[in-house]
């Protein structure tokens, strides 16, 4: 089936229950009524409760832990410290590489960051474990701490040559350019701050392990547990039907999971570990702090001649995470000369990780601020300068875009916002004490493709089931997979049940990289069409079928009923037909893997690593989602307080499987972008590397009252290259470009260019 075979949809109620309809989330009611069971709410008998004990120094080693007082506390069952050999082996990373120099030690004696686990205390109740943990006497030998990227002792770090990008002669073209803008841009450490904190319940039955843990990738996380404990993969089951926000943090198993599961095995009793809110700021990493020095060279008309980017990001001293600051820079504008390089600086932090639109977000902050600075330098409108430098093809890969509706996004966004009424000069619009600024910035996110597997069952009562191990982290997987199956099967949406979030179910990639919808709608559609074809074949051929003698050579399945195309034969419901031909169900399992991965090893690799991922330029085209954000800010002239007053954002994400859910993803990303621009910043104690604001009172996220009216506009058209059904990613692109749009608006309001996020009052007064 190709795109052309799918009926046209209007995205409204006239579409019924199928793809493109504005349906509410299937899991919404369960969640708001408390009926959705999250990982830590699983009713498991005989639980013991674990408390993680974090290091209170930024670097050094654990000299000794005196456990006597803690052991003597009531209810204590087990204490694990660096003195315990947990007997674990290393797990494979997402590149399918397994460190051979094991063992894996999640409770090491050496301390690389404040908050690193140094002990686990398990007791009969959470209160007992908490109290016993307090009684541990831990002696440290403190070492010198490098608290952050900008610390004096952090140094320049090491070059990441594999990330260097260059074409033309950027340095020379920059030197020769009549107009140059050069500046340094900074983004701070940021955190996922998902509503549902991390944690798990681990239960052993012999050498079989079940883990209930919030997950964006059940198969891969289950594999990590299996490898740590030296078990065959099928012995581990990781269950995660509902997730209270992941944003990139729940794709992997972490050390705390290994420690808790090891404790459960030692105790012979299921263990629950709830990572506390403060611990969520160090048990896994957030977005790395970055710094970019960016120079644009242009003609007097603002036509780009050169872009030179020199960036750096932080990682830990024990692991490598690259926040790729050049991720968006080479894509946004046509430029004949380009050079980007990045360095990586190791500091005393937990290893940072993926946070919604990793790389693209800090990258867009710099390039989209710089292009605004260029517009000012040459006296051009910020929208006009983007059109003057419009990239008609991918400037880096030199491939045509599959679809790039950026002109439409700029035009329709501008129209809806009223951009034409903007007065050019900074500080030229005001309302009493409030300076008004209008800013614009654009964003992008790559189309990433991969493979998936789904099982579709048509049941005797005429309903159907869709089953896969993919997860719904709030983005709407349940709903769009039901829509996909409904359309392919001709069975109403309300009669489709979807089961997700369990590594024992068919394979799926990570719910990350904005690819799951595109991948899994393709897999479900394939399985559902195969199930429909099987049903029709039975209806035509089974001796007990009413269609046997109609002479029809195909049948129509619609609204849960089967009929002949000419409309003159019998009409029977799916359930009735199955009854007549004596079948309980039709069950079909399909995957979208290519031939070379149709082996046990290939399948396992596809479901548990990133090695089968295809990037945006893997084929003949360069494929990305695009957006343009228009922002009005109001800045109190004397106080420096900034309020985002309204936003209009236009998106090209290809075809939308469910516009209501896509809009909610875009708005969620935009709100996160408002937080990034104005509020979010992990503050680190320079003496000991501790994240000071490790709670939701002090780590500021926007409240509803901080979020203005946001209007989102869809300018996309189906992209036949991007996915089976024509969609591009919607989940991450929304945050990309919001911070520079706000910073550009703040400049327009105040005449002050703020290049360090978040933008706080003191930068403006």
């Amino acid at each position, binding site marked *: 089936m190709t795109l052309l075979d799918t009926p046209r949809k209007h995205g409204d109620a006239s579409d019924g229950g199928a793809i493109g309809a504005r349906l509410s989330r299937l899991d919404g009611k369960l969640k708001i009524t408390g009926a959705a069971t999250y990982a830590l709410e699983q009713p498991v008998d005989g639980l013991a409760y674990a408390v993680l004990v974090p290091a209170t120094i930024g670097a050094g080693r654990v000299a000794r832990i005196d456990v006597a007082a803690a052991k003597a506390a009531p209810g204590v069952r087990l204490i694990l410290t660096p003195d315990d050999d947990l007997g674990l082996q290393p797990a494979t990373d997402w590149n399918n590489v397994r460190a051979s120099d094991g063992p894996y030690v999640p409770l090491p004696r050496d301390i690389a960051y404040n908050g690193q686990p140094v002990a686990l205390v398990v007791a009969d109740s*959470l*209160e007992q474990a*908490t109290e016993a943990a307090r009684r541990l006497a831990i002696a440290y030998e403190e070492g010198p701490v490098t608290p952050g990227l900008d610390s004096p002792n952090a140094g320049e770090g090491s070059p990441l040559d594999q990330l260097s990008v260059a074409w033309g002669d950027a340095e020379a073209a920059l030197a020769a350019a009549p107009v140059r803008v050069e500046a340094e841009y900074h983004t701070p450490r940021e955190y996922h701050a998902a509503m549902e904190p991390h944690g798990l319940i681990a239960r052993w039955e012999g050498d079989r392990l079940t883990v209930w843990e919030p997950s964006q990738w059940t198969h891969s996380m289950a594999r990590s547990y299996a490898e740590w404990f030296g078990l065959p993969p099928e012995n581990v089951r990781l269950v995660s039907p509902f997730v209270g926000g992941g944003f990139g943090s729940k794709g992997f198993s972490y050390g705390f999971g290994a420690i808790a599961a090891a404790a459960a095995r030692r105790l012979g009793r299921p263990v629950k570990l709830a990572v*506390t809110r403060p611990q969520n700021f160090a048990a896994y990493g957030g977005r790395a702090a970055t710094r970019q020095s960016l120079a644009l060279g242009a003609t007097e008309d603002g036509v780009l001649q050169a872009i030179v980017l020199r960036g750096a990001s932080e990682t830990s001293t024990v692991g490598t995470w690259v926040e790729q600051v050049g991720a968006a820079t080479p894509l946004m504008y046509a430029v004949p000369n380009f050079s980007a390089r990045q360095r990586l600086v190791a500091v005393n932090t937990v290893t940072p990780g993926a946070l919604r639109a990793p790389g693209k977000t800090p990258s867009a902050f710099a390039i989209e601020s710089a292009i605004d600075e260029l517009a000012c330098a040459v006296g051009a409108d910020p929208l006009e300068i983007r059109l003057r430098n419009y990239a008609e093809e991918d400037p880096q890969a030199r491939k045509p875009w599959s679809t790039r509706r950026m002109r439409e996004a700029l035009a329709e966004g501008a129209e809806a916002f009223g951009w034409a009424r903007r007065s050019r000069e900074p500080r030229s619009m005001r309302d009493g*004490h409030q300076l008004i600024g209008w800013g614009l910035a654009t964003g992008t996110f790559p189309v990433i493709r991969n493979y998936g597997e789904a099982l579709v069952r048509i049941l005797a009562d005429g309903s159907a089931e869709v089953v896969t191990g993919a997860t719904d982290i709030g983005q709407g997987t349940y709903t769009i997979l039901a829509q996909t199956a409904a359309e392919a099967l001709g069975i109403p949406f309300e009669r489709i049940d979807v089961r997700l979030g369990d590594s024992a179910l068919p394979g799926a990639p990570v719910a990350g990289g904005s690819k799951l919808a595109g991948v899994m709608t393709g897999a479900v559609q394939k399985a559902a069409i195969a199930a429909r074809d099987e049903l029709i074949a039975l209806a035509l051929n089974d001796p007990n079928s009413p269609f046997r003698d109609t002479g029809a050579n195909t049948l129509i399945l619609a609204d849960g009923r089967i009929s002949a195309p000419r409309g003159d034969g019998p009409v029977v419901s799916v359930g009735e037909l199955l009854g007549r031909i004596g079948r309980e169900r039709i069950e079909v399992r399909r995957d979208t893997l290519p031939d070379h991965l149709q082996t046990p090893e290939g399948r396992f690799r596809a479901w548990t690593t990133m090695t089968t991922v295809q990037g945006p330029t893997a084929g003949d085209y360069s494929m990305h989602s695009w957006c343009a954000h228009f922002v009005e800010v109001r800045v109190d002239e*004397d*106080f420096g*307080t900034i309020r985002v007053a309204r936003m209009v954002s236009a998106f090209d994400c290809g075809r939308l499987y469910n516009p209501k859910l896509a809009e909610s993803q875009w708005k969620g990303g935009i709100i996160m972008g408002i937080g990034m621009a*104005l*509020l979010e910043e992990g*503050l680190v104690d320079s003496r000991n590397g501790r994240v*000071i*604001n490790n709670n939701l009172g*002090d780590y*500021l996220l*926007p*409240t509803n*009252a*901080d979020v203005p009216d946001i209007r989102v506009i869809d300018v996309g058209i189906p992209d036949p290259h991007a996915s089976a059904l024509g969609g591009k990613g919607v989940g991450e692109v929304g945050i990309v470009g919001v911070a520079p749009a706000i910073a550009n608006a703040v400049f327009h309001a105040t005449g002050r260019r703020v290049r360090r996020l978040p933008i*706080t*009052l*003191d930068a403006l*007064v």
Partner: protein
Amino acid sequence: MKAPDFDYVRVRSLDEALAALAAHGEGARILAGGQSLVPALNLRLLAPEILVDIGGIADLSGIALADGTIRIGAMTRHADLERSPEIARHVPLLARAVREIGHPAIRNRGTIGGSLAHADPASELPACVLALEARIVARGPSGERTIAASDFFRGLYETALGPDEILVRIEIPAAAAGERFAFHELARRHGDYAMAGIAALARDTGAATLRIAYFGIGSRPMLAAGAAAALRDHGASEAGAAAAVRALGADLEPQSDLQASAALRMHLAGVLLRRALKDLFPDAAGGREEEIA
């Protein structure tokens, strides 16, 4: 996290409450709306032996006007102040300020007595009672005593109340004809505690009776007496405003924290004062906006 173990008693009268306090000494804590105390317990910042819940003492709640004085019972909720026609009419500064306390859910439970006794330097109501020259009435083993608001706030979370005393009510002179107030606060995020705020009151149309109180600036709510004196001397004019802002340097002891540096707070205090003066004296020197810029 969960609170450490504690005992709990819900008392029916003030005498019962005082007896409980006397019996447990420093180990007892009064529980009013619980909006500051319970979070502190759950974070295990406090570990009292017993909570003495005064929510069941009927005569601790309510708002009454008599002899030109508004009396507010300690257990009166923020939401009651917000909705009260008496407060709107006779203490409009309170009616304005109370809207800025947290969120509706907090205001439904939190009490004025709890807010004053807790003495968070960033809280609105302590600064308001300073500006209003309120009297705070406490009851202890030896009976009632009245403490002027200006003697009540001693330091960070520290008041003139003894451990055996209960704040029972607040007495505020009802607004006179011509009385004016100004109230402003700043927070980076809606609903948060203020990073700087001002509550100012003039009992008549001139600057002679002006009282200016700040919150969120230092370790306790503070009266800016020097600034008020400068305005009395120079009158409500640009010269007066400039002198008042200069005087803030001696009046205030701004502090640095995660939200703002002391220098930024000092700047904000000056802007807040100018904004407040503009509200209070719109007609100053002929009523032209620029007069106090």
